[in-house]
């Protein structure tokens, strides 16, 4: 039988139903993948500069600093100054990559990110580690569960939340090619290497990573793997679920989402982000106007989380495969009920 999966490494496919996937799969925090790619980029493009705010060891941008000391600037614990200085550098044609944690990038320095970077649409790339609840143990102050919603709301923003190390590296290269601000949402905790090098990363192009016809899971960042695991669990129960890696939250790939909505008739969004304003909202806004179908959103409810090992925290807050399976069953029930209803309606019309 032909595999349902595309670009997903065979060893990952084989482990999707296994409880040990996270223990056994090759994995890496995407902040490290970012640092690797930035280093490579530094060699290719002399306009690339790296700006840090005292987390260069954590994000491993020390590698860039060691290789290109002239092009590396550590601003100390002063994210606001770093962001507006990045904007100033970009006015001269440099391509600054400003590195910090997502809570600081999207909240503490938001005024600079909005007014000095996005309003003039300057070519600054914001590398935000510890995005969503990916810093499990660090606790709420360092869990940026709102960053994607905030960044999505800024006019002209491009927001990318790659699912794995392979696509994260590609995202960094694509961000450098794009002329304008880009927010790169990166993980503190390790995520499995999901994809092979044929993964077709392009800003704004979502990728179907599992074919399916019964329902669609649309996920981003660290929860794409959870969506894949859920799809595997559902397959064992006879449900054939499509999985889309919507790595670019903004601009949303409307074509791929609408096509999935038409072809599968039920959608569940999956994000490690507050339920307001992120991927679920983006998809709901699209579908409610263009193709309303049964839908459910997996995300952090109206609450702050807490410290704990990453996988335990996201499970407690409703973001893992078992929660996704439940949500899919729910939309499938509504989809079938809706079909039965419209069938009865058509029958009734014919009889009259």
């Amino acid at each position: 039988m032909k595999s349902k999966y595309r670009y997903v490494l065979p060893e990952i496919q084989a482990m999707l139903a296994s409880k040990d996937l996270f223990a056994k799969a090759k994995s890496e925090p995407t902040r490290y993948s970012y640092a690797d790619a930035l280093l490579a980029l530094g060699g290719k493009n002399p306009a690339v500069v790296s700006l840090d705010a005292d987390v260069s060891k954590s994000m491993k941008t020390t590698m860039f600093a060691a290789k290109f000391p002239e092009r590396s600037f550590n601003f100390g614990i002063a994210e606001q100054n770093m962001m507006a200085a990045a904007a100033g550098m970009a006015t001269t044609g440099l391509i600054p990559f400003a590195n910090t944690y997502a809570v600081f990038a999207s909240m503490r320095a938001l005024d600079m990110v909005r007014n000095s970077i996005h309003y003039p649409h300057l070519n600054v790339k914001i590398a935000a580690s510890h995005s969503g609840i990916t810093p499990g143990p660090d606790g709420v102050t360092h869990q940026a569960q709102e960053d994607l919603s905030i960044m999505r709301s800024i006019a002209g923003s491009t927001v990318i939340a790659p699912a794995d190390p392979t696509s994260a590296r590609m995202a960094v290269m694509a961000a450098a090619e794009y002329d304008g601000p880009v927010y790169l949402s990166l993980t503190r905790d390790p995520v499995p290497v999901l994809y092979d090098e044929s993964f077709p990363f392009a800003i704004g192009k979502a990728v179907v990573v599992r074919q399916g016809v019964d329902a669609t899971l649309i996920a981003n960042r660290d929860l794409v793997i959870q969506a894949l695991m859920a799809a595997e669990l559902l397959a064992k129960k006879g449900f054939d679920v499509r999985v889309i890696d919507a790595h670019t939250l903004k601009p949303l790939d409307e074509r791929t989402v609408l096509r999935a909505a038409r072809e599968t008739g039920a959608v569940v969004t999956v994000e490690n982000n507050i339920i307001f304003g992120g991927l679920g909202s983006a998809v709901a806004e699209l579908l409610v106007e263009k193709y309303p179908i049964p839908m459910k959103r997996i995300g952090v409810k109206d609450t702050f989380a807490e410290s704990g090992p990453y996988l335990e925290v996201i499970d407690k807050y409703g973001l893992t495969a078992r929660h996704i399976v439940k949500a899919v069953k729910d939309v499938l029930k509504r989809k079938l009920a809706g079909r039965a209803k419209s069938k009865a309606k058509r029958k009734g019309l014919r009889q009259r």
Partner: protein
Amino acid sequence: MTQTPMSIPDLKRMAGIIRCDIIDMICIAGAGHPGGSLSAADVVTALYFRLMRIDPQNPGWPDRDRFVLSKGHACPVWYAALAERGYFDKSHLATLRKLNSILQGHPDMHKTPGVDMTVGSLGHGFSAGLGMALAGKLRRKDYHVWVVVGDGESQEGSIWEAAMAAPKWKLDNLTVIVDRNHLQNDFCVDEEMPIEPLAEKWRAFNWHVETIDGHDMEQIVSALEAARERKAIPTAIIAETVKGKGVSYMENVADWHGKAPCQAEADKALEEIRRCYCEI
């Protein structure tokens, strides 16, 4: 047009013309910030007509000096200087704050020729200027970056983040002029949130500090020229100024921070300014 760099008497006259433009444009707009525009008028005039290496015909010239008005609300003084310097036609000044204007309520680098950075939220412009200076050093350019910061603006925490950073990178291509007019939107700066001892603060942050009379053109020019030549250390010039300078009823009155004069008030202001500056 008078040649640049201008002589001191010509600079004084030009500062008067720019003050008249400020009053005119804010009166026509019916809103804007006259007080802080007038207090910075002499410094901005000296920069645009004597100090800065610029080409109004080529605003994007990569080797140009940069100017950032970090206290962006005082943009009427910036727009007036740019118009008088020939970046765009003076007729635009009457469109300040109007729909489809190239002159936004706070400066927009993509709308106004000669505006090097979009500013308005206080504190940002200084950091942006720091970034431009860093880029200049990295690329071995010899342009200078001039930033005007407000004294009220100095209450923003990020001002001191940038102040801490510039000496680390020995940014002698960066000069900050603090428009020390002693008033902010609500009240007196030092009643609302004291910033003194200001010169000592900048010195403690490892800047070379000069305090000058920000309305004395000779002092302004000589301080700016010295700043351009100074090596290995950034310069902060504390320009002691009078908010609303040149218009008797606006001087030292906090309420003229963000209020437009009516036509009768504007006429009186223009008459005073012309008498004081333009007949020099």
